[in-house]
């Protein structure tokens, strides 16, 4: 069984235990071997934000630990968090592999800023790719130390020793063995990972590459798994915070008298922060409802009808992302030219767990339980707002009820910290669904303009690609075009004043927009010249990894070559996301009366390099495809100025069981390439995939997401 130490720790005990210094940390670990190592993700991305490490008196040349305890159990300490993506399982497999250990003897201690070294955050499909290799090296180092200890213990030279099932044994006399527990008993050994011993060759793997069931399953099916909102402290108050009617509005006055009359209600006003607090969350809500506030609201400059006209009024600076050849030459070579504009809209993260935090401030120190993808970011923000040092703040991250980039923002943690300080009581802030929609950092609305050209022999000669506001990730084309240029204007966080509310990273940021635009446009060219979309793609790309994922999908899907529109309702899309290759084909049905699209089946193939947990990888693919149905078909934020009109799951429709297509998630074996990320890639295909299937079904193409019934009906009426 897994033990998630921060979760299991009694909250009261955790709140009263101070930050560790080095001596206390070793005391906490107890006897055994500790290997300090450096997460490769640190370089170079984390380097810029690296805080001073000596504040805790800990060594500065590592950012993770691996500990072999004298009970023979191995614990990994990492600032990464588990939000459903399954790293609690895949990281376990890596440790078990290098240490020849049963996976049941591996524990993960995650996202506790006092127990785990600094980490930038959990996002961007980076854990397996960057953290994984470093973790494996640390495990290999621990194994080397264990073998050294065994040399003395077994009186056998190390060349004659090997490891198996949590013990070191003689190669030729396996019965002559000593367990890790016996080797570490009473010893305290510290190692810094320098030149790591060689990792195991893939052909000898007994854990990696084999499916392993989720390690968090039992806790999650029994209700025992704790999330930030499940932590209880004596005397705690639940806060409900007054929300502005719109972003940009100002609070001009508030009458708290009615709220204060409610038994046990505390009302706090601190500048812009007004909250009703009560020992019961539902009664706190009554307090909030009883507040009589006046606001000044600016005139709305934009709504969802005028959005793209409004966005066209900004002229963010362009950055050239990729370039080759000469665009004029490409134009000259073209027998046909294509010019189109693609639009995508604001999309919410809409995790079922809303942003939640519990903060206790006591004796100049703060303890925080937060649903966050950035525990160390939360720590620094709490320190700042409370005016204390970061080492006096401890952030504990229980299970996170999904993130998708939305929980990189820690506003709820800051709110709870302010209220905890003001009331002198532990305070939980758990956003209502309405708060969640209002404060969300949406996937930005974006515009993509593409001009392209094809030669008489259907070869791409020109690709001039301009993406506004989405971000540049995945914008450069992988098709084989001699004359191309990709320019990105404004990133996903948006320059201040561009968007009427917050925008930010949304699962596979930028890449959903860029893949929709590119794959729609490629399909459009194929259709215009009467080519089969698969043959057209294969004829215009040289990358063998892309060819392979396309061929894999073709085989399972049973793609029969046909010119589009074939009226079969079949479409495809492919892409590369940070080193992972993906392709998919789908079959849809369009209800001509209602404009509703029903996706019947999806086949998706993914080449993510070496695969650690094939079951985990497939889960991520299936989940990404299912989630992606939302931004492809229904999800868009309606708004008027800074007023977010969608408040709950009635007007904002996310995918549900009745939408479920038959999903086939295929993994393309490619152990030559180191393990890449798998949490995001598949979702990037969904917009282009369904738009292309719609075009194939009806002959009508939509250049804007989502492919809502209203838009489908409108485009069908133009046929």
């Amino acid at each position, binding site marked *: 069984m897994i033990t998630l130490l921060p979760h299991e720790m009694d909250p009261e005990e955790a709140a009263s235990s101070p930050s560790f210094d080095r001596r206390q940390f070793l005391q906490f670990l107890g006897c055994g071997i500790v290997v300090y190592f450096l997460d490769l993700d640190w370089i170079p991305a984390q380097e810029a934000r690296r805080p001073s490490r000596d504040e805790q008196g800990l060594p500065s040349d590592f950012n993770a630990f691996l500990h072999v305890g004298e009970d023979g159990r191995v614990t990994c300490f990492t600032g990464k968090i588990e939000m*459903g993506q*399954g790293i609690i399982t895949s990281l376990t497999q890596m440790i078990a592999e290098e240490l020849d250990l049963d996976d049941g003897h591996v524990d993960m201690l995650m996202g506790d800023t006092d127990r785990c070294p600094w980490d930038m955050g959990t996002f961007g499909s980076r854990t397996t790719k960057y953290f994984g290799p470093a973790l494996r090296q640390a495990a290999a180092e621990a194994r080397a130390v264990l073998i050294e200890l065994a040399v003395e213990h077994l009186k056998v030279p190390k060349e004659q020793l090997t490891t198996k099932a949590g013990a070191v044994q003689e190669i030729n006399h396996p019965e002559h063995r000593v367990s890790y527990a016996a080797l570490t008993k009473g010893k305290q050994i510290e190692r810094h990972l320098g030149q790591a011993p060689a990792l195991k060759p893939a052909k000898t793997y007994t854990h990696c590459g084999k499916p392993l069931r989720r390690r968090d399953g039992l806790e999650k*099916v*029994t*209700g025992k798994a704790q999330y930030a909102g499940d932590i209880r402290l004596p005397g705690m108050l639940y806060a409900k915070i007054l929300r502005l009617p719109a972003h940009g509005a100002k609070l001009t006055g508030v009458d708290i008298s009615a709220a204060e009359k409610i038994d046990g209600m505390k009302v706090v006003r601190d500048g812009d922060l007004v909250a009703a607090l009560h020992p019961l969350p*539902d009664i706190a809500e009554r307090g909030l409802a009883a507040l009589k506030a006046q606001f000044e609201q600016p005139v709305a400059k934009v709504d969802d009808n005028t959005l793209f006209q409004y966005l066209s009024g900004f002229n963010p600076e362009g950055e050239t992302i990729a370039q080759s050849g000469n665009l004029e030459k490409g134009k000259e070579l073209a027998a046909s030219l294509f010019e189109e504009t693609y639009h995508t809209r604001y999309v919410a993260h809409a995790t079922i767990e809303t942003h939640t935090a519990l903060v206790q401030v006591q004796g100049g120190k703060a303890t925080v339980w937060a649903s966050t993808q950035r525990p160390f970011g939360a720590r620094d923000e709490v320190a700042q707002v409370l005016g204390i040092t970061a080492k006096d703040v401890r952030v504990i991250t229980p299970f996170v009820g999904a993130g998708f980039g939305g929980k990189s923002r820690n506003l709820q943690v800051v709110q709870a910290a302010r209220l905890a300080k003001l009331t002198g009581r532990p305070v939980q802030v758990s956003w209502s*669904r309405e708060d969640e929609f209002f404060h969300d950092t949406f996937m930005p609305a974006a515009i993509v303009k593409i001009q392209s050209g094809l030669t008489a022999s259907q070869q791409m000669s020109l690709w001039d690609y301009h993406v506004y506001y989405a971000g540049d990730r995945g914008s450069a084309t992988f098709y084989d075009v001699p004359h191309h240029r990709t320019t990105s204007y404004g990133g996903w966080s948006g320059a201040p004043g561009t968007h009427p509310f917050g925008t930010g990273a949304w699962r596979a940021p930028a890449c959903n927009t860029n893949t929709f635009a590119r794959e729609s446009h490629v399909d459009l060219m194929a259709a215009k010249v009467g080519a089969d979309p698969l043959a057209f793609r294969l004829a215009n790309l040289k990358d063998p990894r892309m060819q392979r994922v396309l061929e894999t999908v073709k085989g399972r899907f049973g793609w029969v070559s046909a010119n589009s529109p074939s009226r079969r309702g079949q479409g495809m899309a492919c892409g590369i996301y940070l080193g992972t290759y993906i392709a998919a084909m789908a079959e849809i049905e369009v209800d001509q009366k209602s404009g509703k699209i029903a996706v019947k089946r999806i086949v998706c193939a993914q080449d993510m390099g070496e695969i650690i947990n094939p079951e985990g990888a497939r889960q991520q693919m299936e989940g990404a495809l299912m989630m992606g149905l939302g931004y492809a078909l229904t999800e868009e934020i309606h708004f008027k100025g800074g007023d977010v009109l969608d408040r709950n799951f*009635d007007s904002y429709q996310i995918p549900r069981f*009745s939408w479920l297509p038959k999903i086939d998630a295929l993994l393309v074996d490619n152990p030559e390439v180191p393990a890449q990320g798998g949490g995001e890639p598949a979702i990037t295909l969904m917009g282009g995939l369904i738009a292309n299937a719609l075009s194939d079904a009806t002959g009508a193409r939509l250049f804007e997401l989502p492919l809502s019934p209203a838009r489908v009906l409108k485009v069908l009426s133009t046929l």
Partner: protein
Amino acid sequence: MIELIDFHLNHKPTQLRVESSRRLLWVLRTDLNLTGTKCGCEAGLCGACTVLIDDQAARSCQVPVGEIKNKQVVTIEGLARNGQLHPLQESFIEHDALQCGFCTPGMILQAYSLLQSNPHPTEKEIRQGMKDNLCRCGPHQRIVAAIAGAARGMKGEKR
């Protein structure tokens, strides 16, 4: 109005002295510290707060606690009996039919209720019966398989 409410909670007789208009969800999560029941929308739209009332799935965010008088309430904490997981719980684990896990308790109790009224559902009936329980991570296909597997298991067939 403060009332004395007698009911069965997770198979045990329970008595509460509470304001009867308060929603069952919050009484469970705070007064009774049963935090397995989650809050996702507070509007009966997502199903994260699903519990069983007399073996029927109910949205506890919509149920005034006064309405559970003399009824049997089962939360996710009470589904396993005598240390034995319910076949649905086992099947969710076996199928990896969850990711972040936040909607999972509601999913399992909704599925329980579905199997009560239809012990042998087709996949289509499962999709229909589960359609108002929302999940953002997307393991829907695995959840359908897990429910179908549990239904077979409860008949004594292979999951």
